[in-house]
């Protein structure tokens, strides 16, 4: 691994963590698509600021883009609050509009300047090490590392300082409002943070994959834990996994790094979705099977208990026509009986089924 590769991976890791932190709150607050909206509409801010400064590395670009992100959030809220369109439609109206104006401005007035929509949409993390930070003639490393590091630090500070407030405003906005701190403030602070992070990251991964980094890791983490603090850490961890894994996948395939990162995050999500210990599809399936078995066993044992040693037992408890009384499939009935015999709850005598002492104790316990 050479120094260039190391630097690219470092940038990727910092971007991934910086995105995963605010992304966690977006997922929990059911506003995931705001990341999509903001990451697209910041193009407008970047273009306008670029026309003003004619310098792609001006900090004014970051400022204007962040402001556009906030403006997007504001427009969406105004539209939605007017109660004339739904929230999803509001999002779907605002960002394509701002994005379109951005594209139109670029093609009308910036034809021969280096600012094309491909770069904004797709980004190229492999180029980040070529822009260096030099102070006093010394090379301090890739500039993107410092920009994103600063944004990451800001995200950590923000979440650290307002952890309690964020938590309350996320899980119980009504209580938060009743206790006197405004959920609106929290909302716009968070939106500002998302915008800033998206602006910082689009250079590296492009505006569409910012969404993958913001939403993918928290979505997977959400299936793994019920604690906010764990979810934040897990998201960051999955983000790191996605960025390093993505880098090497891209290396092996000689393909787009950002695309590979999103692909790895997608794979991680699918694995978690299938295999998560409590909420995974597999775990849910097993639990359902277990519950069905338990219900069937209880039904069978109760049936035997109420009919054994009585005159009708000849018919009701007979191993060959038991299934018709329970209205089960014959094969299924045999499987449940076998299970109960193996557990030592039932025994067979002259083709009739009887409860063992253990079986009686078991059904007593379940019935209670």
């Amino acid at each position: 691994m050479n120094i260039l590769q190391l630097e690219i991976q470092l940038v990727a890791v910092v971007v991934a963590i910086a995105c995963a932190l605010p992304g966690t709150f977006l997922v929990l607050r059911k506003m995931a698509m705001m990341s999509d909206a903001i990451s697209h509409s910041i193009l407008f801010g970047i273009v306008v600021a670029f026309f003003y400064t004619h310098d792609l590395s001006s900090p004014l670009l970051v400022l204007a883009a962040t402001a556009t992100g906030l403006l997007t959030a504001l427009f969406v809220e105004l539209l939605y609050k007017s109660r004339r369109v739904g929230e999803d439609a509001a999002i779907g109206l605002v960002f394509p509009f701002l994005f379109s104006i951005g594209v139109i401005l670029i093609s009308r007035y910036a034809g021969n300047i280096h600012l094309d929509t491909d770069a904004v949409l797709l980004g190229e993390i492999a180029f980040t090490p070529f822009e260096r930070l030099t102070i006093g003639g010394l090379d301090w490393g890739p500039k993107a590392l410092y920009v994103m590091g600063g944004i990451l630090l800001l995200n950590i500070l923000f979440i650290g300082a307002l952890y309690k407030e964020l938590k309350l405003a996320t899980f119980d906005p009504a209580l938060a409002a009743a206790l006197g701190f405004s959920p609106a403030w929290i909302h716009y602070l968070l939106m500002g943070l998302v915008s800033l992070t998206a602006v910082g990251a689009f250079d590296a991964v492009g505006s569409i994959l910012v969404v993958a980094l913001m939403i993918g890791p928290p979505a997977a983490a959400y299936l793994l834990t019920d604690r906010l603090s764990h979810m934040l850490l897990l998201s960051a961890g999955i983000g790191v996994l996605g960025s390093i894994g993505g880098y090497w996948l891209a290396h092996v395939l000689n393909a787009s790094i950002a695309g590979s990162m999103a692909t790895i995050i997608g794979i991680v999500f699918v694995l978690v979705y299938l295999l998560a210990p409590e909420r995974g599809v597999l775990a849910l399936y097993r639990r359902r099977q277990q519950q069905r078995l338990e219900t069937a066993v209880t039904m069978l044992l109760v049936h035997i208990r109420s009919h054994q040693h009585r005159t009708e037992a000849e018919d009701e408890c007979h191993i060959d026509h038991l299934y018709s009384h329970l209205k089960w499939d014959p094969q299924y009935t045999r499987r449940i009986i076998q299970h109960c015999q193996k557990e030592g709850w039932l025994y067979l005598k002259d083709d009739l089924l009887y409860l063992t002492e253990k079986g009686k104790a078991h059904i007593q316990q379940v019935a209670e």
Partner: protein
Amino acid sequence: MEGLDILIHLFRDYTLRNVLLGALILGGISGVLGALALLRRQSLLGDTISHAALPGIALAFLFSGSKSSLILLTGAALSGWLATLFMLQVVRSSRIKDDTALGLVLSVFFGFGLVLLTFIQKRPDAAQAGLDKFLFGQAATLMAEDVRIMAILSGLVFAVVLLLWKEFKVFLFDTGFAESLGFPTRRLDVLLLSMLVITIVIGLQTVGVVLMSAMVVAPAAAARQWTHRLERMVLLSGAFGMIAGVVGSLASSVVPRLPTGPTIVVVATILVLFSLLFAPARGILWNWFMQKRNQKEIHVQIALLTLLELAEHHHDFRHQHSLQVIQAALPRNTHLKRTLQELRERGWVDEPRKGYLSLTPAGVEAARKFRQSREGKA
């Protein structure tokens, strides 16, 4: 050149005719399907489908090596469809919410599509221009053949909508009721999604991945403001889509360096803004105006009734009340001057002496009518 000449000239131009027809078809069908999606609260699904089409386009090219629209669009439709089904499955079977699933599927599929694109760019026969156009759309590359495919596909989709109109209507407004009637709601849902996928795929070549989502949201959101009836909304939405398509592509062909896709989206958004502000009954400005008018009417009624009571108090309908007395008798915030002016204009009040007002016989009659109707209501 005269306006008509420009139009004739435009229609003789092969490229432009294709662009115009393409935008017209695309606007119409995305308006119709968008209206159904809006009512199903699935407006953002279009965004996900269009992004998720990318890997399908890339794979179709990798396997077939062909740039034929039909093959690429089939790939796009397949992966858009798979993405949608996966997203719905995730929402149904886990605690992941719609918005998260939409964002996740959108970005991951797109990312995977980018990985595939880099493969394509390395191939010697990589005429990537053919694929690039799907990102932002390149209306100018539309061929007559493409337009024909668009027309056939959207005709099919529209026919299905017409054929299953009743079913969709019940399903959209009351899924539970539809289910109780024995409609196969799951299958209707998948059918609706599949048609949305086809619609979006139709538009990819003209407006591109990023902006196609706007075409299923904007015309529908605009149409929703004008009517409460589904039939009208769907037709209006289709019409708005067509207007946006035609106006946008015309503008972009007349003005140099005005890209087609974004221009169409901007026109559609302007239609939305106009509808939000001015649509009767739902428009914001319309409501504001009606409210002002009602307020004025209420002020007039209050002032008239107060004058009547004052007059009855004096047992003289023509009693002359000084302005100060009227002001004291009226509740605040009734815009005294404006209200009295209105009363005078209607001939219900006159000013026999400067600073003094009295009811006219017509005014007395009107006031009594108001009082009767109020008491009738109470």
